[in-house]
């Protein structure tokens, strides 16, 4: 009974002796302190990592918004142009074929006169020649005028009010991108022209307003960046996405259902499975080369066509869709299938009536994320001729949209970023904003679908 007769101090020493971990719960042992410190450190690392990520995102968003918002504003000038009959329709017969013979170069003098008249009307003193005065305007002005006359030949001889684009330098001056100092060596604009611009702003003739044409318009050549818009390339992207959706979704879903529900588990299906995962990791440029070799050189599909772009992006999106669809199908518990089979459904009925509807939100989420990925892809489009000065004719029919040459949003951004005039650079950033809005919207829809409809067991 010597154990019992031990004094409390003896117990304490006996307890201490066998293990160094023993101690008060209130006072932390050095080892516990070390473990807790490690955890605190890890949390701090985690927070720092998130902080760095957020900071990057913040820098990215502020840069994009800061540089791109300028593209959504454009400077216009309002002028009264006299549509001189002698110049536009010499015969006076209003015969459209005859009027068409007058090219945009023939319209330039009318615009020159109109600017000179406006400057005189506003009482601005200047030594500039009419040609220099017209330099304030975009070269697009003559095209605008010609298009109007061809549509309204009966208005020849009248004086009509027009709103013309100003040149990219004037636009940059209004937005603060171009200053009087920065144009010291610039032969495209002179300080005297800017004086006139200032006077016109004062008179309310020249103003910077919201630029709808940037969202709806076509690409423009290097000589008139102020006229360039994203609209046509947006349509190009839309048609490509239609092709991707029409092909990748049914093919991907059919392949996944077969692999997941019907295929026997053997070495062949294992190989297929591994290769689908491999395919998902193939760089997109490879699909571009494949598209060039197969769709254009071998199948003789037209170059630069959104149909070909869509086919290439389908190849790229398929693995994403297959993998996410299989995951969604796997997530449906076997009890659902068993119950359906138990009441006498065939395997196909069990899949299509019970499993597929339950997996649909997951499939749709995967599809939308795959589409968003495809929407932002540029590399494969380089090889099939969708990058360049292409997005200039808006498609009129579905067939036209699929087959006539077009660009895509990311390709258009890439193209603008390469061009010499800094005004294109601004538009590239503006294009990024539009593209990001699309991507964020698509991802939000995917998240909402998943949150609202996905069931967990």
């Amino acid at each position, binding site marked *: 009974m010597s154990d019992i007769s031990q004094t409390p101090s003896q117990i304490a020493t006996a307890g201490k002796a066998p293990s160094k971990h023993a101690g008060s719960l209130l006072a932390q042992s050095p080892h516990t302190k070390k473990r807790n410190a490690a955890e605190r450190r890890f949390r701090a690392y985690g927070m720092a990592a998130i902080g760095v990520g957020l900071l990057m995102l913040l820098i990215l968003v502020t840069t994009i918004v800061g540089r791109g918002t300028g593209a959504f504003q454009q400077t216009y000038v309002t002028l009264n142009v006299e549509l001189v009959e002698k110049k536009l329709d010499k015969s006076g017969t209003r015969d459209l074929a005859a009027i*068409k013979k007058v*090219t*945009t*170069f023939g319209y330039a003098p009318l615009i020159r006169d109109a600017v000179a008249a406006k400057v005189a009307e506003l009482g601005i003193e200047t030594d500039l020649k009419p040609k220099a005065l017209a330099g304030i305007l975009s*070269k697009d002005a003559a*095209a605008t005028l*010609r*298009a109007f006359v061809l549509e309204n030949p009966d208005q020849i001889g009248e004086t009509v009010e027009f709103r013309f684009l100003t040149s990219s330098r004037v636009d940059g001056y209004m937005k603060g991108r*171009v200053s009087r100092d*920065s*144009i*010291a*060596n*610039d*032969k*495209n604009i002179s300080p005297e022209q800017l004086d006139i611009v200032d006077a016109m702003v004062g008179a309310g003739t020249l103003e910077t307003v919201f630029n709808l044409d940037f969202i709806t318009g076509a690409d*423009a*050549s*290097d*000589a*008139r960046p102020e006229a360039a818009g994203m609209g046509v390339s947006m349509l190009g992207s839309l048609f490509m996405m239609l*092709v991707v959706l*029409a*092909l990748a979704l*049914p*093919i991907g879903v*059919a392949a996944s259902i077969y692999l997941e529900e019907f295929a026997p588990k053997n070495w062949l299906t294992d190989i297929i499975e591994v290769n689908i995962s491999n395919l998902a990791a193939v760089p997109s440029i490879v699909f571009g080369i494949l598209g060039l070799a197969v769709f*254009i*050189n071998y*199948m*003789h*599909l*037209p*170059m*630069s*066509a959104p*149909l070909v772009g869509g086919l290439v992006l389908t190849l790229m999106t398929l693995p994403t869709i297959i993998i996410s669809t299989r995951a969604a199908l796997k997530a449906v518990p076997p009890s659902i299938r068993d119950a359906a089979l138990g009441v006498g459904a065939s395997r196909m009925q069990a899949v*299509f009536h019970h499993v597929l509807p339950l997996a649909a939100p997951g499939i749709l989420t995967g599809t939308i994320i795959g589409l968003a990925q495809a929407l932002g892809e540029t590399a494969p489009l380089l090889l099939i*001729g969708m*990058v*360049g*000065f*292409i997005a*200039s*004719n808006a498609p009129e029919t579905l*067939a036209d949209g*699929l*087959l*006539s*040459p077009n660009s895509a949003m990311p390709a258009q951004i890439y193209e603008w*970023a*390469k*061009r*010499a*005039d*800094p005004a294109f*650079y601004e538009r590239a950033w503006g294009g990024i904003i539009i593209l990001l809005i699309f991507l964020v919207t698509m991802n939000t829809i995917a998240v909402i679908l998943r949150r609202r409809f996905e069931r967990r067991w």
Partner: protein
Amino acid sequence: MSFVKYTVSALAVSAAFATAASARDQVQVAGSSTVLPYASIVAEAFGENFDFPTPVVESGGSSAGLKRFCEGVGENTIDIANASRQIKEKELQACADNGVSDIIEVQIGYDGIVFASDINGNGFAFSPEDWFLALSDEIVVDGALVANPNKSWADVNAAFPDQSIQAFVPGTKHGTREVFEDKVILAGCEATGAFDMLKEANGGDKKAAEKACIRLRTDGVSVDIDGDYTETLARIESNKDGIGVFGLAFYENNTDKLQVATMSDVVPSTESIATGEYPVSRPLFFYVKKAHIGVIPGLKEFAEFFVADEVAGPDGPLAEYGLVSDPELSKTQAVVSDEAIIGGNS
């Protein structure tokens, strides 16, 4: 299985479209990124003024464009190749092998190549010798060929400021590189006497000596830019000592960021290039596939419009953008209207 039906019908419809598409109705152009802005300006004006759709202009470089051009005859090949250099014998042969025998060569004008540095940095007045001494692999020092020891521009020419040498030159896939080598480095090589020494060292072989002349140093002083001029500009913005090679039109659009250097005491401008005073310039071309004229609607009209006085002339939009118009434009116009092919009227 309604979606299976939809899929099948969608596939059928796209297949039907594909066959309907066999008739291409717009001109397709590809090639040099230097010619691209000019070609797109013309394409835009062409689409506005004619009833043909706006031609499609792609870039990719002179060599890539000519390669695609020579792939064969047919609607799946391009109609026009833009080039910032003349077509080579080898390329003509490749074309002929693929059945592209009748090619119309059209010279649209001249383009200047300028040397520019950061607007706030030092100004330079270069001569070809300076560039050779700064960038060549081997130079002559005290009568012997040695690996280029120059680190600073002051080493190259006592008149220059002490600024470390950092050059951004176009990569070898660019037509611009060839002009830079021929008109600057090779000229400098000959002027400094290195050419004769190299010729001697190579046993009198002129070709080998030329090759040795244009070999640039690889110690990081000269950086090849394979991208576009925007990349060169970005490099100069981040490295204020850098001096880059640009096209004249690009410089003229970015005068707020760049200052241009003179070459042999001539300031580059459309005028000094047109008179031939400014030495570093080259002709720009496009090549038309004669077999496509009459097949692709608007092809000949586009080619004629491209070289028309109001477009490519001294007051036209191309000259305004930076092209130095060809004083013998009327000859070029005759070539296009007669459809005169390379190598005579065979």
